[in-house]
């Protein structure tokens, strides 16, 4: 689905040059298989996306200015006996922004946000760009990868076995510029040693995930540089609509062909 010009204009107006971060935001999200790592990466990006929402757009292209619920709005909804779900309710404004009202996001409408998201897996319900390793190399010098969330699932981008190849060197160089690009780089992987050593050293936040099948809650223990350790649990199905929990990383045909050449029949 492509967004209308009015929707794109709303996003452009809302895009502000953010302040440079005090340190590079590289997050390692670790955990066993099926422990909620991908869900946690998506949660980080989606929460920021909705936090900075600027409007809604209908399937026919009609744009409505809006913003996410603030503390007062949440208290008001609770008083009315409604759970203040930030993914369901927004405060919508008239065109002149003089009047506003809390509404439920209509079915089929898309949320507009200036937050950019890149991922090497498919996402739904959010404006994002699907990228492969080839795309990262192709656009590494452009201004595409700036002021964004970059979600890297498995070790496709940061495999330590690529570290001495041309690809690995460019990706390591990219990792060293995450701070300057103002990127929130989330690497989801099972163990530390499945990612290149430079990224382990760049990492400023480590997140350990565990999943409870019975309650469908993911517990995250977060160790952020300069801050005390924190943990929290959240309800995973809230993010399952935004990605496919069973999507597998595709291996390129060229890589398969090269591997086949090395097999002795």
């Amino acid at each position, binding site marked *: *689905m*492509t*967004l209308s010009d009015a929707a*794109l204009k709303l996003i*452009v107006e809302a*895009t502000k*040059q953010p302040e440079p971060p005090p340190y590079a935001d590289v997050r390692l999200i670790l955990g066993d298989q099926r422990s909620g790592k991908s869900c946690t990466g998506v*949660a980080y990006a*989606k*929460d*920021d996306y*909705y*936090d900075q929402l600027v409007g809604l757009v209908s399937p026919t292209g009609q744009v409505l200015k809006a913003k996410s619920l603030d503390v007062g709005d949440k208290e008001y909804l609770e008083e009315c006996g409604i*759970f*203040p779900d930030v993914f369901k309710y927004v405060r919508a404004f008239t065109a002149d922004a003089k009047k506003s009202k809390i509404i439920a996001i209509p079915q089929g409408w898309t949320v507009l946000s200036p937050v*950019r998201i890149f991922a090497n897996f*498919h996402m*739904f*319900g959010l*404006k*994002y*760009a*699907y*990228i*492969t390793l*080839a*795309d990262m*190399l*192709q*656009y590494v*010098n*452009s*201004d*595409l*990868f700036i002021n*964004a969330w970059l979600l890297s699932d498995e070790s496709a981008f940061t495999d330590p076995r690529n570290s001495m190849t041309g690809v690995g060197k460019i990706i390591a160089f990219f990792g060293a510029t995450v701070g300057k690009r103002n990127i929130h780089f989330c690497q989801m992987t099972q163990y*530390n040693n499945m990612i290149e050593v430079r990224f*382990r*050293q760049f*990492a400023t936040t*480590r997140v350990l995930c565990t999943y409870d099948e019975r309650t*469908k809650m993911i517990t*995250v223990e*977060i*160790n952020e540089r300069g801050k*005390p*350790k*924190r*943990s*929290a*649990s*959240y*309800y995973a*199905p*809230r*993010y*399952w*609509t*935004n990605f*496919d929990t069973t999507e597998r990383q595709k291996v390129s045909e060229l890589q398969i062909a090269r591997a086949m050449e090395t097999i002795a029949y």
Partner: protein
Amino acid sequence: MTNNPVVPPNQGDDGLDLYNQVSEVTPERTINVAEDNGDGNHKSMKERLEESPNLSDMQTADRRMFPDMGRKHLNRLLVARVFPDVYNPLYRIIVKDAIKSDMSKPLEEQQTVGEILTDCNTAMSIPIDGEGRIDELGLAGVAHDEKMELEKTKLV
């Protein structure tokens, strides 16, 4: 995304035009899980994190083991050395001093005698024979070990 040659830097638009060209929106997936709003499950991960206490385990332990007594001299006493033979006379002096100093405060700020006795007993019992200092150093040592473990994981 298209298979073009290497793209040079854009000028002035922070890559927004390029992002709008390559990005897409697809409808949300439908999942067969019943909505569960009980016990705060309607909250996002960010909201849950904001609710979680911002204290490390060490800071929580420190606050429990060395509570704020509300009086500066009692807080200093927590990390002093109190010898057993001066415990009783010193205890009597600081209790009387606390009661007398409270008498000059407004009624709502005064502590009851029981509260004063409890606070003074806590302030005196923790530092007996310097045990308070030893416990504080123990906490600092554990915090240091945790930090070293974290540094090690970067290289593993």
